[in-house]
């Protein structure tokens, strides 16, 4: 330990405040100052010559300007990049197959076809229903024509002429005459009924309507759909969903 003198006291005071002295040396310095009070102000001024930090550092606003975007280093993140690209490729391929799968497109077609089939079935049922009604009316008219014809034979010429002049009966006669395969339905009385004008009118209406429907069926060119668009007054649909 070097002896403290007035020549080297400032250096020792400097070293004391820098923290470079041992406890023994610090005691020696304090003892010298105690023996020489004129150095007390120097000792205090040396202590005040130190800059002390204020705790937190002043923000100069440069942080955001200096930051760099995280660049993906190929060598540092090689496997991460490869795996990421593979995942993206798989997802893209899966989505492509899911979107453009021909099986998915064909699924929609049958649904449309099925609906069209259903509609056609409906039409057919309606047509068949109409046909049955036509057949029924034809049968009824035939019955009446049979009865009318038989009655006409038994009637006086005046009555027959009167009946024959009716348009509906003429059509019924022609139909009856042309229908060679006509087989009388059982249950019909052979004896002619008394014919009245009202009966003929009823029969004519039935015959005209039925003939119209039959003609529409025989001539599809006139009615392409094969079904009368206007519902008939006496048309009874068989399909409840019609």
């Amino acid at each position, binding site marked *: 330990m070097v002896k403290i003198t007035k020549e080297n006291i400032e*250096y020792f005071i400097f070293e004391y405040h820098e923290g470079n002295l041992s406890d023994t040396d610090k005691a020696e310095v304090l003892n010298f100052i105690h023996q020489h009070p004129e150095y007390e102000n120097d000792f205090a001024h040396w202590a005040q010559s*130190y800059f002390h*930090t204020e705790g937190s550092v002043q923000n100069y606003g*440069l942080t955001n300007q200096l*930051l760099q975007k995280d660049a993906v280093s190929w060598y540092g993140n090689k496997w991460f990049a490869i795996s990421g690209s593979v995942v993206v490729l798989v997802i893209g391929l899966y989505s492509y197959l899911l979107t453009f799968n021909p099986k998915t497109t064909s699924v929609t077609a049958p649904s449309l076809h099925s609906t069209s089939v259903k509609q056609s079935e409906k039409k057919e049922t309606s047509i068949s229903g109409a046909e049955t009604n036509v057949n029924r009316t034809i049968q009824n008219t035939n019955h009446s024509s049979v009865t009318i014809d038989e009655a006409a034979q038994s009637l006086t010429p005046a009555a027959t002429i009167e009946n024959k002049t009716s348009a509906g009966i003429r059509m019924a006669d022609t139909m009856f005459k042309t229908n060679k395969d006509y087989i009388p339905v059982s249950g019909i009385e052979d004896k002619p009924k008394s014919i009245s004008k009202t009966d003929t009118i009823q029969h004519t209406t039935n015959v005209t309507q039925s003939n119209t429907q039959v003609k529409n069926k025989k001539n599809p060119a006139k009615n392409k759909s094969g079904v009368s668009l206007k519902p008939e007054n006496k048309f009874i649909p068989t399909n409840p969903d019609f």
Partner: protein
Amino acid sequence: MSAKLYNQSVHDYSNRVCRFVDKLLQDSTAAKDITQEAYLRLWENRDKIDFDKVRAWLFTTAYRLSIDYLKQKNRFYSDEWIPEISIDQENPDLKKVLHDALSLLTEQQKSIILLKDYEGYSYEEIGKILQLNESQVKVYLFRARKKIKEYIGDLRLVL
């Protein structure tokens, strides 16, 4: 050094470096420019610099840029020249007195004081930054503190 470590150095040291240059040059605008330049050089040389030595590298670069700035401005002070400073006798705040006392020091002395008191560098680390050996740092530091002490003593005598 990756970009992530670079950004971490920005968060940790950017304000400290700027404070060091600001107190060294007494100019906050120049301090910001020099700090940005220092970090720009760090980014360009990030592959060559280890993250453990980034702090010392930044202060070294900032100090050299500051000396170059002062030389360009013809404001580089030597040990022999001591500028005159005005003393605010109405508000002898010690903090302000110390701030004014820095103007009495040379750039080298000022740098040593700032690196020692604000950043807590050792004599050896300061020597590496300023390219001095440990004994030289200690001598320059002693001279700097003695100047400040005498300035404070004279001020109190005047007041």
